[in-house]
């Protein structure tokens, strides 16, 4: 009898020891994570900037929005505990989590939320990032110490996407601090897992673990759930040259390079001393050609069809991003719920013979058409050269006009172009993704059917209905060819082997708070 107790006791001890050793093998706290940035930050005040770099570096680490994405890219509450949208879609009640701490140890209250929601849509606040998407918000009221109500003049179907978006993150900031500094962000203070230490212009950004972090807990599900904050410090180094980033990674000066030069990815993937991931993110930028509808030939649907059937999108993707993109004609990217593979079949396929047929119907006599592009984003330029050859093969003569980025942007906005090579930032909701099919488009596209469908999309609440309309719009673009999308680019990242904790979801935007070093 005693022996049995002893045995039992031993078993318990040993199992405890084993369990302990698995705990031992669990992620270790500590270390400084060093990554590169392709450009320097432009602004520390996230309410004022839609620049990708500001939102990528500060948007998830220092600041947190009210809503965020789960693993399936559904929008769920992050800093809210719960929410309620009225049946008529005009009243959104947000119940804020209690005990969420700012980096200055103050608790986040309803007044802070109201302050931020007002700030991002204030027409008098220069650069207000959500001026347009929250235009129909009449008023934001504090209706309790932890409750805020938004009153809308019209339903805003993509309001949750806006509250979660990383294009102009509506990060929560402390009202009192901003008010005492003339509404200027002198030092970013948010609720995020890492707090701001310093920004050495054109050199680096330094962040350190926020010990009193209290915003999120629970099982990890996309951006929701526990944020472990294993690293002590995060340092983002400005390295504008892709080659320097790889060299720095090799030398051990960096742990991660989040944006890889396409021409080197093949070689990098072959290496055994690096972890390289590439893949499509749901907000992938899409590269396309716009046409100006004021042009005698470009305004003819047959001419545009000729252009579309002449293009081999797979070849263009190879030329422009060395294959690290998803060739597609669809404004619905593969990762959004509205997508299905049959959409591809509706699009114009590569068929030079058919292209020539369409061309003949137009009376085109070989006049030179100008393609406007810049070289700042190399795929924009590279896709032009590839397309130029393909168009020439069916008899469409083009001439490339290269300008600098600022001029490129200006002429895009003013519609001063014939064919325009461009890229659009990917948006996660159908409305934002189809902004260039709205009556306010810059390339003189006037199609009543398109406008009507999009208007209907703007007025419906039902995500099912929205996706249906989204698909209808897409079908229309296949028939009308208002623009020609070529591909979505992939995200890429290279990590040193000792960096652990990242998964494919992190291609979307790294959850550095769950990465760790393995010794």
């Amino acid at each position, binding site marked *: 009898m005693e022996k049995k107790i002893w045995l039992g006791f031993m078993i318990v001890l040993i199992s405890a020891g084993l369990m302990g050793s698995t705990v031992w093998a669990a992620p270790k706290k500590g270390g400084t994570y060093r990554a590169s940035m392709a450009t320097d930050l432009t602004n520390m005040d996230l309410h004022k900037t839609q620049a990708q770099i500001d939102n990528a570096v500060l948007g998830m680490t220092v600041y947190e929005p009210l809503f965020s994405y789960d693993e399936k890219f559904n929008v769920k509450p992050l800093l809210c505990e719960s929410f309620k949208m009225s049946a008529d879609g005009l009243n959104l009640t947000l119940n804020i989590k209690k005990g969420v701490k700012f980096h200055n140890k103050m608790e986040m209250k309803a007044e802070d939320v109201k302050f931020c929601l007002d700030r991002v849509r204030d027409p008098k606040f220069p650069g207000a990032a959500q001026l347009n998407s929250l235009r129909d918000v009449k008023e934001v009221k504090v209706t309790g110490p932890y409750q805020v109500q938004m009153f809308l003049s019209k339903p805003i179907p993509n309001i949750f996407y806006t509250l979660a978006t990383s294009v102009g993150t509506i990060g929560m900031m402390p009202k009192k601090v901003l008010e005492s500094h003339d509404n200027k962000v002198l030092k970013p203070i948010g609720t995020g897992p890492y707090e701001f230490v310093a920004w050495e212009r054109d050199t680096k950004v330094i962040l350190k673990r926020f010990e009193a972090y209290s915003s999120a807990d629970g099982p990890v599900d996309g951006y929701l759930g526990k944020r472990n904050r294993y690293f002590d410090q995060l340092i983002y180094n400005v390295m504008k040259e*892709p*080659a320097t980033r790889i060299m720095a990674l090799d030398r051990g000066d960096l742990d991660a390079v989040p944006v890889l*030069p396409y*021409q*080197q990815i093949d*070689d990098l993937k072959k290496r055994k001393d690096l972890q390289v991931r590439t893949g499509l993110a749901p907000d992938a930028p899409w590269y396309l050609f716009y046409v100006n509808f004021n042009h005698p030939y470009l305004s003819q649907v047959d001419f545009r069809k000729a252009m579309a059937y002449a293009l081999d999108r797979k*070849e263009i993707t*190879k*030329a422009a991003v060395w294959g690290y993109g998803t060739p597609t004609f669809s404004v619905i990217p593969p990762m959004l719920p509205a997508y299905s593979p049959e959409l591809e079949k509706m699009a114009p396929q590569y068929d030079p013979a058919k292209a020539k047929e369409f061309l003949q119907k137009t009376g085109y006599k070989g006049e030179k058409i100008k393609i406007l592009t810049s*070289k700042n984003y*190399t795929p924009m*330029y*590279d896709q032009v*050269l*590839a397309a130029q*050859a393909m168009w020439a093969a069916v008899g469409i003569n083009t001439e*490339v*006009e*290269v*300008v*600098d980025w600022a*001029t490129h942007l200006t002429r895009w906005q003013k519609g001063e172009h014939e064919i325009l090579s461009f890229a659009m930032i990917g948006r996660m909701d159908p409305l934002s993704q189809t902004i260039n099919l709205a009556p306010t488009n810059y390339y003189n596209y006037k199609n009543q059917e398109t406008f009507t469908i999009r208007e209907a999309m703007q007025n419906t609440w039902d995500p099912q209905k929205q996706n249906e309309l989204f698909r209808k719009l897409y079908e229309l673009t296949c028939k009308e060819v208002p623009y020609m999308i070529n591909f979505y680019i992939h995200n890429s990242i290279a990590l040193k082997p000792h960096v652990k904790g990242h998964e494919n979801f992190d291609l979307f935007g790294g959850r550095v708070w769950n990465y760790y070093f393995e010794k």
Partner: protein
Amino acid sequence: MFAKRFFRNKLSLFGLAIVVILVLVSFLASYIQPYDPLKISISTRTQAPSKTHTFGTDHFGRDIFSRILSGAKISLTVGIVSVALGAFIGIILGAIGGYFGGWIDYSITLVMDAIISFPATLLAIGLMSVMGLGVTNIIIALGFIGIPHYGRIMRGAVLSIREKEYVEAARASGSGHLKLLLIHVLPNAMAPLIVVTTIGVANAILIEAALSFLGLGVPPPAPSWGNMLADGRNFLIQAPWMTIFPGLAISFTVLGFNTLGDGLRDVLDPKLKQ
């Protein structure tokens, strides 16, 4: 007499030889180049130099050797025409200033000083940003930048001659201003002008290369050597031949004009050894 001295001078011969080769290449490029410099071929991108592609291919599969041959035309055109433009305007302005003196001279000299007070590359960048890319614009910009260099020489020549007796005599006898300038002044300025313009072509080619490298010069896909260097930069490790050969081409060309200029300087006026 000049010709004899010229052909005896090794420098000028060497320089002339290079320039002649370049001129021939630019005229004959389209006949001798093995490939179309603009034709892209993704499947053969960034290939090292080989039997099929003497200097290799670039990131679009374009043959580098053919592009270099075609690029010669661009460099020579930009270099020579911009210098001709700058010299033409500069000579006129310098002559007017030196001859008439007073407020005219002061304002012309002021403008020229203002232009020279900018480092040339910076000024070129500024001008090209305003005017936009294009061969014509580069020629205008580089010509503009060169004006003071030629203007000063002409002005100096005019000033040194102005007081001379035979000029006074000629003026007294009623010769027109223009005739005086052309017959008496210009020959004096010829020697330094020839040297400066030759070396000016060399510098113009260098600045054009820098501009194109920065993306503010000859617009791609034209095979300007500067453009080729700009492309090569992103592939420095993968395809160094994209950088090496265009650079050699530029150096070779500029060397030709520099040695020609130096040789001319030795021949025309040994005292001019700057």
